[in-house]
């Protein structure tokens, strides 16, 4: 620890990083065990269970005739409960995408990750899920590109959106 300069307006004793790393400045560490569980609600509960089976399921609203994915029990456009469960395809089109050269924990990446919103075939226009596209050179990705879901093998699925490993282009 260094003593503070007298001219400093900030009270206190600044920490010397080197002293801290060398253990010359004594400290106590603590790792709290923080666990939680969200209630999925009915719509997402069914959605996750179907993902585990390798299927994508949506909800439809008979009034506005939309098919919504991820499913929801309430139509935010009509202000009424949605009506039916509808299976949709595990293919779709790239609605938006990003070439991401920085990982989630801020490491620089040589090969970019390609997060994308996939407009799912069988659901209403603009209805899609945020996921990741692979098996394509970054420069070739474009909006409207046809893609298909690549599922994890069944024993590895957990009832999560990551039960789809990634989406890949459909070769024509």
């Amino acid at each position, binding site marked *: 620890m260094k003593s503070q300069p007298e001219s400093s307006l900030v009270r206190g004793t600044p920490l010397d990083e080197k002293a801290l790393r060398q*253990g010359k*400045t*004594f400290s106590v560490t603590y790792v709290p065990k923080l666990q939680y*569980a969200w209630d*999925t609600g009915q719509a997402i509960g069914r959605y996750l269970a179907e993902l585990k089976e390798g299927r994508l399921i949506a909800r439809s609203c008979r009034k506005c005739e939309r098919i919504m994915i991820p499913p929801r029990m309430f139509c935010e456009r009509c202000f009424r409960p949605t009506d039916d469960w509808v299976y949709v395809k595990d293919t779709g089109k790239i609605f938006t995408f990003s070439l991401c050269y920085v990982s989630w924990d801020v490491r620089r990446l040589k090969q970019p990750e390609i997060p994308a919103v996939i407009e799912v075939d069988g659901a209403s226009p603009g209805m899609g899920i945020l996921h990741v596209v692979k098996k394509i050179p970054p420069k070739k990705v474009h909006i409207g590109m046809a893609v298909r879901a690549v599922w994890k093998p069944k024993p590895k699925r957990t009832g999560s959106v990551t039960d789809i490993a990634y989406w890949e282009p459909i070769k024509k």
Partner: protein
Amino acid sequence: MTQLPTKNEQRSWPGKIPLTSLYTVGTGGQIFFHALKTQGKLIGTRCNPCEQVYLPARSFCERCFAELTEQVQVKRTGRLVSYTISYVDHDGARLRRPTALGLVQLEGATTLILHYLLSVDDPTEVKIGCRVETVIKPKAKRIGSILDIEGFRVIGGDRKG
């Protein structure tokens, strides 16, 4: 909507929050832990006007807020002021061996210090007011932690036998 969960429905989404914190012991704590680690000594700080000796050392007096600069070595022996025998762990699970914790005033200090009471085989033998001695780990095992003190051992007073 009161529909009951069906078999093909997942009910909850689990998560964890990774958090790690690090507290530095402060300027007063630095004096105490440095002396404990390097010399196995117990160092407090004195406030003369308030007639207090704080252990572990503090950088200011809690009563008059004066800066404390006078360091005092406190003895390893003292008296048991209070104690607790704990039969359960943090989660409420029963412990195989109960843990004893003692609140001790060491000779030369006016404050109390909380630590383990060692080798308590029979809880009925522990009495408030009995003499205790601080057990400090050998130097090679000291790292500048409150656990460099192993705890307090009852050495006499009201203890039977």
